[in-house]
């Protein structure tokens, strides 16, 4: 009895399974994951190392992350030195087929130091401020980088990825106009934030960050710095202290008590707070929180 039909059917089934298998993608952050899921649709399966609630500057190198990366075809990095911890994870994964793409490629980087950089400046990034995803116009650049990387690892779905990119661009451009209109009343607003995470959002919304709870990036606030910040806020009438959810609220509360300002939790990434469930709703949430607190400022 010939087994040829069974072999052919099995072969076809395996081929169709292979065709249907999603491209495994791992990202450093949830913001990249959200965009990659939009561009990749059902052709990709995306996992993020950080959850959105984690401080992306400090991530422990866990073997479970290495296992996650060992199965991936593509790793998408934030770049600009923020996710330096991704390299030992990728190395530890032993994955020889993985492609690594840097989503910051082509972004206009803010606060790039012009002179020598050392640790006396705090935990400063020599390549410039890495929180670029917080300007949605950079989301367009990230999406193009992600689409390019996906096409390189999965050229068979290039048309699908291109179509999703165009849809993403149209949707995000429309939202950018809406957000800019909604942010009109915020133009010129001065705020203080815990860490220097917000220059890109500030540029987009026309908001100016004039001080930080941290005396220098990554350095815990001191009593003298808090006193200076209270004086600065009083002299300029600043009423908003923005805080990333992974920082303690003790120092912001002390400053708020000394100035009458309000502390507002600002989600710096997708998944960092309720409502910020994807890249679009991240900006909806940020704008809504800032507008709400600005409207109710004393």
């Amino acid at each position, binding site marked *: 009895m010939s087994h040829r039909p069974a072999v052919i059917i099995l072969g076809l089934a395996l081929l169709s399974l292979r065709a249907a298998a999603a491209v495994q993608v791992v990202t450093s952050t949830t913001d990249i994951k959200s965009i990659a899921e939009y561009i990749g649709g059902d052709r990709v399966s995306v996992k993020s190392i950080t959850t959105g609630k984690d401080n992306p500057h*400090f*991530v422990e190198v*866990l*073997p479970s992350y290495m296992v996650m990366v060992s199965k991936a075809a593509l790793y998408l990095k934030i770049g600009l030195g923020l996710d*330096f911890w991704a390299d030992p994870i990728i190395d530890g*994964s032993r994955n020889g087929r993985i492609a690594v793409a840097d989503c910051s490629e082509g972004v206009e980087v803010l606060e790039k130091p012009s002179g020598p950089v050392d*640790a006396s400046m705090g935990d400063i990034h020599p390549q410039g401020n890495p929180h670029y995803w917080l300007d949605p116009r950079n989301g367009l650049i990230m999406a193009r980088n992600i689409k390019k990387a996906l096409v390189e690892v999965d050229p068979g779905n290039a048309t699908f990825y291109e179509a999703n990119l165009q849809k993403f661009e149209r949707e995000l451009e429309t939202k950018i106009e809406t957000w800019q209109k909604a942010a009109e009343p915020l133009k010129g607003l001065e705020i203080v934030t815990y860490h220097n995470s917000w220059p890109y959002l500030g540029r987009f919304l026309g908001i100016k960050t004039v001080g930080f709870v941290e005396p220098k990036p990554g350095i815990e606030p001191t009593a003298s710095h808090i006193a200076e910040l209270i004086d600065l806020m009083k002299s300029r009438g600043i009423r908003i202290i923005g805080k990333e959810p992974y920082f303690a609220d003790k120092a912001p509360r002390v400053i708020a008590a000394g100035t009458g300002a309000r502390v507002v939790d600002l989600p710096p990434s997708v998944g960092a707070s309720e409502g910020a469930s994807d890249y679009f709703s991240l900006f909806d949430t940020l704008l809504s929180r800032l507008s709400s607190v600005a409207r109710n400022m004393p």
Partner: protein
Amino acid sequence: MSQTTVNPALSFIGDMRLSGFRHAPAAVGDNKMIFDFHELEIAAGAALNPYARADVTLGISHGTIDIEEAYATLLRGLPLNLQVKAGQYRVDFGKLNTQHPHQWSWVERPLMFTRFFGEEGLDAAGLNISSLVSVGRSALTLSGNIFTGGSYWGDSQDPKLHNLAESARVSLFAPVTEHANLEFGFSGLTTRLGDSTGGRTTMGDLDFKYKWRPDMYRSVVFVAEGMIGSRLAAGGATRTTAGGFFASLDIQFHRQYNVGALMDYCRDPVPGFGRQTGIGVFAGFSLVEETYRIGLLLRQDQGPALPRPYQTVILQLLWSLGPHKPHQF
């Protein structure tokens, strides 16, 4: 390739101590305080090409330069998720032996490692092959070594004293919750004495680590490791067994502060030393992660070889100059 792209990441880690002793053995000296620039560690590492990297760690202590590690690793491109390391390196016999002392809040290397393997622990020239296997969300690491040049059972470091040694470690890393992880490991080691008389050293090690870190301000780390060994002396005439145990609980209660306690026990492999038990408490302050740390250790050791309980106080300043290097769990 431009020269700047091949420069390795270079770090200097200094370990300065102010130590005080009471009822110390004669070799240490009693009732005195000493400043001790304990060690300067120079670490360099970089990719050699897309598939391999090399790492070098030199330890400079009291005028002596020691190559602690110098090895190349084939990172990827090998079948079965294999990774191959060759050179001088810290053998993964147990968890703590693979770590450098600056990773520990408890300041000093556990007794069982110094008594069995020497001041630097088990550091040898050889070949390591490891594989990473996915078990659901967990990671199973299988690792094997063949090496020579280490010291065992309190012997000298003379490589002629032993034949090649073989060791293996199996470890399972498992995420328990979103913020907690644990790791179990089992290691075994065997080596024949180099005198062709049938003498053999065989050792086993069990290690455990649990870490809970819900945010950047709080963490609890518990580590425990036990070791047992047996030596069949030359000619097979006598067999001796010895072992040790170490446990530490380290609690970070603020971004910059931590406190903890340790228990250290060793039944010495060298006849006549008997057993030694140490208990201690420690505290640490770190202004910024991985830049500098001030540590304080209060410890008491006792045992038949010590005439009286022996107390140590160490105030340590540890600093790190160079690029951030996140340590693996």
